């Protein structure tokens, strides 16, 4: 589990580009100059033919700056859903960044495939979809809105994946006001919207996309947590109280050492999942759940420490600390909470849940 030279080059390229282009404006150069949108797309569909480890590197870097670009929603979720479905026609336009994709998936706050209630019915003119989707990353309309809209919906035969053409009737998009201001989400309502089936095996597709999404998000959480730690270490070295730098107090030092252990152990977990995804390990689901739960908790804890150790300025709107803290909260709940993922792990390693908690006196 080591990065090679080409990974370091990719990291350097993404980092220096993000230093030159702030905010959403980074997306154009990221796709045109580095080709991030097509990194994990096979060459035959216009991509670079790389895989989860390269995605990991990009996500770590995006996490460091909380870049508000549609990488996760488009280059990971939509692209991987199409690849898993084997429907490749839309990939070239996503890979070169000329359009972005969105996957309309979660309902009632859940990303579990079983939670999908949206329905797809076949009529004379093809499929029609009805239902409400929340937390659609970069799913709002307008200029930055996604051009390729994918929707998970239930048919009589089970869960399936659909493509809703842009401009189709019966689709309304409404931006959520998110606590984390750096990652836009939308509610999409479908009222008999026209759709084309892209994958009939929706349970498998969504389970796989969830594994890859958790893996990628874990890497982003590591990058963000690492940045929190760097900024905090720099602050406690500079800030003087009681005539010495506050970083010389052991209560502070030990807290940061623990943060370092958290960040590096989270990185181990995220890397483990990325490598498992890269080699197609049958244990990917478990490693993804481990990574998502551990990295969520690590980022939340380190972002919390960042506020505490910055004192008063840590709770101001001007300082970046709250942006990291809010992103930590948002990404912790995205694709399932840490406890939710541990519940999945418990199902696998402890066994099915029994009748109750009698022992809890």
């Amino acid at each position, binding site marked *: 589990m080591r990065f090679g030279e080409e990974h370091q080059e990719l990291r350097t390229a993404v980092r220096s580009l993000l230093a030159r282009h702030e905010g959403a404006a980074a997306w154009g150069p990221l796709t045109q100059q580095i080709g991030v949108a097509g990194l994990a797309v096979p060459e035959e569909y216009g991509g670079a033919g790389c895989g989860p480890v390269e995605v990991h590197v990009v996500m770590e870097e995006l996490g460091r700056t909380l870049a508000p670009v549609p990488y996760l929603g488009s280059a990971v979720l939509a692209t991987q859903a199409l690849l898993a479905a084997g429907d490749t026609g839309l990939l070239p336009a996503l890979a070169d960044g000329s359009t972005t994709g969105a996957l309309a998936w979660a309902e009632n706050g859940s990303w579990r495939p079983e939670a999908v209630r949206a329905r797809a019915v076949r009529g004379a003119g093809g499929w029609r979809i009805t239902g409400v989707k929340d937390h659609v990353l970069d799913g709002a309309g307008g200029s930055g809105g996604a051009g390729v809209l994918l929707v998970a919906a239930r048919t009589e035969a089970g869960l399936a994946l659909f493509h809703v053409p842009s401009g189709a009737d019966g689709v309304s998009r409404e931006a959520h006001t998110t606590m984390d201001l750096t990652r836009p989400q939308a509610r999409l309502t479908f009222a008999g919207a026209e759709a084309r089936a892209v994958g009939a095996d929706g349970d498998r597709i969504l389970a796989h996309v969830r594994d890859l999404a958790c893996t990628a998000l874990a890497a982003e959480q590591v990058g963000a947590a690492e940045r929190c730690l760097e900024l905090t270490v720099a602050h406690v070295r500079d800030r003087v109280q009681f005539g010495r730098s506050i970083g010389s107090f052991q209560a502070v030092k030990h807290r*940061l*050492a623990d943060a370092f252990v958290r960040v*590096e152990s989270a*990185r181990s977990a995220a890397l483990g999942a990325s490598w498992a995804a890269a080699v197609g390990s049958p244990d990917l689901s478990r490693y993804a759940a481990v990574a998502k739960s551990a990295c969520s908790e690590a980022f939340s804890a380190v972002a919390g420490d960042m506020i505490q150790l910055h004192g008063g300025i840590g709770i101001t709107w001007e300082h970046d600390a709250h942006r990291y803290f809010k992103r930590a909260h948002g990404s912790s709940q995205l694709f399932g909470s840490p406890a939710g993922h*541990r519940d999945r792990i418990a199902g696998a390693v402890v066994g099915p849940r029994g009748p109750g908690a009698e*022992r809890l006196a």
Partner: protein
Amino acid sequence: MSSTEKFRSEFRTWLRSGLTGEFAALKGRGGPGREHEAFAERLAWERHMAAAGWTCVGWPREFGGRGATLEEQVAFHEEYALADAPARVGHIGEQLLGPTLIAFGTDAQRARFLPGIRSVDELWCQGYSEPDAGSDLANVRTRAERDADGWSVTGQKIWTSLAHESQWCFLVARTGQGKRRHEGLSYLLVPMDQPGVEVRPIAQLTGTSEFNEVFFDAARTGADNVVGEPGDGWKVAMATLGFERGVSTLGQQVGFRRELEALIGLARRNGAADDPLLRDRLARAWTGLEIIRFNALRMLDGAAAGAPGPEASIGKIYWATWHRELGEVAMDVCGADGMLADGAPYDLDDWQRLFLFSRADTIYAGSNEIQRNIIAERVLGLPKEARA
């Protein structure tokens, strides 16, 4: 098949045929809190391993090892744990002193001591800690003086694991003055079987006794038995600590997995597995175990690339804390049963021993607090502690 897999399967095959007959009963014996169990039989087993060339596998071939790569050493520890083979008795010599002599010893010292470690004919103990020198190791008071025929050692060591079973002790003693406390220390190899050495066992919280007080009263050792230059022992002592926190811990996650799996089995049997809070804690323990493994793999990759990096301190804090928490979960899984020791005089079960003995994990080989200081100062670059 990769060379690691070949190595693994060769060792597995040997273990399978080796752990039979007189040795079959040794499965699962020994280990922290249970070092007294079948010690003589485990010693015989380890000599049997040595005869087949399965001790000191990580040492270079020229020193009697197999020159096993780090990956092969991990495979070795994994297979050993998977076979439920008894806890090792010669690990202090094999994993701490051996690599130290290979790095810093003279040819004569290597020729004299490495074969005895490899054949498990000589067991070693580590004489670092003293009543006033634990975390503050540079504060050792034990003195060694050079005279016409060698060294004379006087002082007291404490918490010396397996000193009562050992023929030799490697220790840190003050041999001269220095401007800084780290100067003037020497790393000496001292025979235990002599009138000037007294070993007194210390009872531990489990009721058993694995470590000791060791008193040196003009104890003798040869002029040649100093490793590195006299007065320059700190560097050698630190290298040994590096070995202690590094490779030797790589294999332990397999033993941890065995413990966790057994605990989950108990939770299923006694109904604890239905308790949502305990399910979460068991799943959290599982998550931590995967991270211990990935941390170790990263440390391996870093070491293979020539730069072990800070992963050793991360690994130590992480696994030690994890193991301690596993002991706490175990007591909640056991519930009310965990309050009772089964039988007289004080016969604890595996879970009670885990609960009690895992408290030591965050203390020995550099306590969590000392590891935090190392990370804060050497990795994060925060200001040093004020020192007396």
